[in-house]
């Protein structure tokens, strides 16, 4: 997979620090699955976290803290079973769902305007911050909206284009409030992407009323 659109340093830093809201963090995790270059860059920022951790002044632990932890290790307590509710919308062909979504609840496709279907992705414990899967027909515009502080769109299948170029599988589009791009799905076929926003989502027109219940922050 040849990837030409990557995440910005700023977003990778926030992901490394663990301070991105759940929805955008999910899109970042999805991009990282397919992009070795961004994984290497993330590691650099995580190393910053490691360096800061090593440099922190130690805080005194309770006197028996180590003994209590050793007792837990001795007891070989089983880790809590990891169960995750999981539903999946129908995907065309043999598209593999990104592993980052495996713990998420994924709603059914819902009609969201001509040629546009949308499925809500709920991150466990993510509260108001979630993401949407968008399935958009060939030649259709992606839902028109204004921008919050950060908008991330990861292509899973197919492709779209905007003023910055063409986005294929593995590419991520990262824009902020300064950008007014108008992504259009390429004529060759439908496009599936995972999208999340930070800040207020401002879908315009009747589509907005449809979309708002799906993407909240």
């Amino acid at each position: 997979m040849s990837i030409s659109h990557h995440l910005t340093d700023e977003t990778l830093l926030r992901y490394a620090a663990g301070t991105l809201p759940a929805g955008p963090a999910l899109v970042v995790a999805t991009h990282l699955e397919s992009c070795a270059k961004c994984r290497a860059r993330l590691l650099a920022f995580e190393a910053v976290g490691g360096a800061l951790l090593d440099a922190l002044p130690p805080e005194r632990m309770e006197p028996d803290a180590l003994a209590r932890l050793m007792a837990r290790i001795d007891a070989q307590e089983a880790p809590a079973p990891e169960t995750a509710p999981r539903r999946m919308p129908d995907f065309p062909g043999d598209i593999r769902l990104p592993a980052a979504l495996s713990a998420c609840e994924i709603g059914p496709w819902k009609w969201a305007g001509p040629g546009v279907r949308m499925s809500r992705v709920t991150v466990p414990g993510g509260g108001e911050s979630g993401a949407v899967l968008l399935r958009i027909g060939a030649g259709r515009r992606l839902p028109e909206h204004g921008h919050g502080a950060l908008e991330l769109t990861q292509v899973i299948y197919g492709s779209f284009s905007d003023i910055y170029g063409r986005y294929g599988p593995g590419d991520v589009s990262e824009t902020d409030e300064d950008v007014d791009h108008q992504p259009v799905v390429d004529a060759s076929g439908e496009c599936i992407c995972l999208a999340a926003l930070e800040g207020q989502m401002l879908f315009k027109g009747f589509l907005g009323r449809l979309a708002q219940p799906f993407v909240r922050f």
Partner: protein
Amino acid sequence: MTSASAENNALGPQALSRLVVVIATDRDRQAFTWLYRHYAPRLKSYFLRSGMAGNVAEELAQETMLQVWRKAALFDPAKAGAGTWIFTIARNLRVDYLRHDRIRPSGDGEMPEDEADDAPNGEALLITSEREERLRTALQTLSSEQEAIVRLSFFGDKPHMQIAQELGIPLGTVKSRVRLALAKLRAALDGDK
């Protein structure tokens, strides 16, 4: 200073990484105890700075060290130093705690592996620790404003907009400081490519 912390001061990044490797291969409790004495108090410090109450910070530090014991076999000294790896475990626990939910996908945030690294452990450890050492040096060359913003980015839970408000500087200034700082840090890490 207790004798324990004096002992800890002697542990450099390479020694710490070696401890994790020994914990993974030998389930060595003495190695774990040394690692614990170094990291548990720093982890507590990290969680406190991230806005956790004292008892929560203590509990999350314990939980982090428990995962270090359990997941030691996943530590890849070719990828990161012990501090970096332990930081990511702590960060994931913090994210989980803030989401009031313990569910994580299996693999727990581990990225799919790149091609296997055939470098022998000792060599990998050295290369990683040299790279991270360059990063630590670069961190010290940041201006105090840049350093403050990197620190706030890691320990606060605040978007840059809010950092800007609190520091009383324009958002654009925060963003450009972050970019400059990150460019410096990346240059330090990219030196080995």
